[in-house]
């Protein structure tokens, strides 16, 4: 039955296939071994790699692309300056706001031999997923945008550090402003069910509890991606609140504000933190955005020393996207890593120790880390939206009394 031909054909086919695969496998190995000497001998400078991770696609892509650009800008500037004894290669990875993807990407970064440091994440959940991986590999990671308070811990120091404030730190100045300075006491709270939203809810509740007379009269949690908030807002309208706090991201915040306007709730103050600070908020909310109060840590880049140059360089580099709310953080995170690299060399352990002890002055002011790896820099600015722009409260027409905030007597 099976004599001769068919089996012979199978054998021949198989032989050819295995031969081919062998060649392919050989090529794979071969290119690797050819590359290695090139890097050492071909260019005069040693190459070290720094990885950037952030949401470059998916629902939060807006938040990740700007920081990616500024990070790259910082690396390019450092390479161009000619002061480095090595060449830095910039790697950008996408976590798509998904912890599983983030963990996978982190494994990939850790497996690259020349990676000395990483900077990652806008989403707290993604950072949670990758911290153990980076720590186990002994690669220092500077968090540029994730604000969950639990991320920086003493046992992870100095490998995990963070240049941006936590949600708790962010809410303190906002609460002081709207409750103490403006005297708004009765609050409605809407937050997203995301990690970010939950952290904000807790932080705001804590702030309200600290002040006598202040109270939260309603709390609603919405899932990211919802579009209809009218039922919630109609309910809140009846409660005669002094202000509405939203803890979440741009899209939902903008919809809430525009729907508030529709339902005749324009006279209720809306407040939020850096998650909603984006030109997109004003674009989507339109006219309704006027008078919304937000806070963002740090000062506006253009007001910081070196900020003008930063903005010019960013425009010169030809990036299409705005650098966004977190651009300055990623820029400083990159510079912190580069400064530490300059001083400590490319050993990962020495680099991590150096980052832990750094005192770097950049766009955010002077950044240094406490014993958990959290930045001690607590500059922040209150912005109010005026004529379609985020304007520093101190320079706004609202402060001078020329205009009145929603609900002001």
């Amino acid at each position, binding site marked *: 039955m099976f004599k001769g031909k068919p089996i012979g054909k199978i054998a021949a086919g198989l032989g050819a296939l295995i031969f081919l695969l062998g060649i392919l496998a050989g090529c794979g190995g071969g290119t690797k071994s050819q590359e290695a000497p090139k890097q050492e001998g071909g260019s005069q400078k040693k190459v070290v790699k720094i990885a950037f991770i952030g949401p470059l*696609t*998916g*629902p939060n*892509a*807006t938040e990740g692309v700007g920081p990616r650009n500024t990070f790259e800008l910082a690396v390019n500037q450092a390479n161009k300056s000619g002061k480095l004894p090595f060449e830095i290669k910039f790697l950008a990875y996408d976590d798509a706001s998904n912890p599983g993807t983030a963990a996978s990407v982190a494994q990939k970064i850790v497996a690259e031999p020349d990676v000395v440091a990483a900077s990652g994440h806008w989403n707290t959940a993604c950072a949670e997923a990758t911290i153990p991986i980076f720590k186990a590999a002994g690669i220092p990671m500077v968090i540029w945008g994730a604000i969950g308070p639990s991320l920086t811990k003493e046992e992870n120091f100095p490998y995990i550090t963070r240049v941006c404030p936590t949600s708790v730190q962010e809410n303190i100045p906002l609460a002081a402003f709207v409750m103490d300075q403006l005297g708004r006491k009765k609050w409605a709270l809407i937050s997203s*069910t995301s990690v970010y939203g939950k952290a904000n809810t807790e932080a705001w509740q804590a702030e309200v509890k600290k002040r006598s007379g202040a109270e939260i009269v309603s*709390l*609603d*949690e*919405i*899932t990211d*991606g919802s*579009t*209809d908030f*009218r*039922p*919630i807002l*109609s*309910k809140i*309208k*009846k409660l005669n609140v002094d202000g509405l706090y939203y803890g979440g991201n*741009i*899209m939902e915040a*903008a*919809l809430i504000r*525009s*729907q508030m306007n*529709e*339902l*005749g709730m324009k006279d209720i103050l809306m407040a939020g933190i850096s998650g909603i600070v984006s030109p*997109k908020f004003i*674009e*989507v*909310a*339109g006219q309704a955005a006027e008078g919304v109060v937000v806070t963002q840590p740090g000062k506006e880049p253009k007001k910081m020393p070196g900020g003008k140059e930063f903005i010019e360089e960013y425009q010169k580099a030809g990036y299409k996207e705005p650098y966004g709310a977190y651009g300055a953080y990623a820029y400083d995170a990159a510079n912190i890593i580069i400064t530490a690299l300059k001083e400590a060399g490319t050993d990962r352990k020495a680099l991590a120790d150096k980052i832990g002890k750094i005192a770097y002055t950049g766009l955010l002011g002077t950044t240094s880390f406490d014993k958990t790896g959290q930045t001690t820099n607590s500059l922040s600015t209150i912005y109010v939206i005026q004529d379609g722009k985020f304007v520093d409260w101190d320079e706004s027409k609202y402060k001078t009394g020329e205009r009145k905030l929603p609900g002001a007597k």
Partner: protein
Amino acid sequence: MELIISQILNAVMLACTYTLVGIGFSLFFGAMDIVVFCLGDVAIAGAFAIMALSTVMGVYASLSGILPAPISGIIVVFIGACFTAGLVTLMYRAVIVPFEGKNINASLLSTIAAGIVIRELIGLFYPEGRNPHAFPQLLPAGLIGDNVLLSWRNIIIIAITFIMVMLLYWFVNRTKTGLSIQAISQNKEAAIMVGINWHRIIVITFLIGGFLLGIGGFLTASYFNSLRFDMGAMYGLKGFCVAVVGGLGSIYGAIVGGLLIAFVEVFVTAFIPGGTAYSSVAAFLIVVLFILFKPEGILGEKTVEKV
């Protein structure tokens, strides 16, 4: 009392956004016995087309130079709806025709995949596609009198939905083509036997359904003032739920189903403390219960399983 009235109004408006996509599901299921899962994405693609016409491509601006604003608005919406009709017919050719007469699982998966493809293509190729966009305000936004509950836009949305349903009613019951669609949905073989050109009717059904979807996408985007590339997934799913609750294949069922789902969502949000996070859960639970205990829906005909 005012609270309840305003919540009822919210629910009615939400139902309007669900109804047209629900009708789309029912129409195609009636005509072909298939569920086209990518309808939500098609509708959102239509809304994107309308947005592109009025912002990026500047058609609206150049039209309103010549014509009064409402008429140029209508023209833009009409073009967008025609685009949607074309898109859904393309979907029919690309992902439904190859699976005609085969296992329904194949067409189910292929239409879901087509939905993903549409969504991702918008995300990749529309300028700043993955960012949320403010939808251009083609409908007047002002209030009627001093009453904050009624705005012109809400009235117009309800009116357009109503007109569309009426037109569809007239078309399905009073025209020959519409009667042919009904004939096909009742018995395909018999319909072919009495001389109905099946293929022509199916394509017409898809064109009409697509047109309705385009309008639906436009109304939804106008109601929410915003548009995002991945809105279509949930929109389509809710539309399917609406169609099932109302009775798959029944056009009026989609209206009833839309009202039911919308009322459940709004009232769970409004009157159950802490219920906001569970409003979608409640809506989906209703659907699961319906499928388990009354699969023919509220207005659907009870089908006996054929042996």
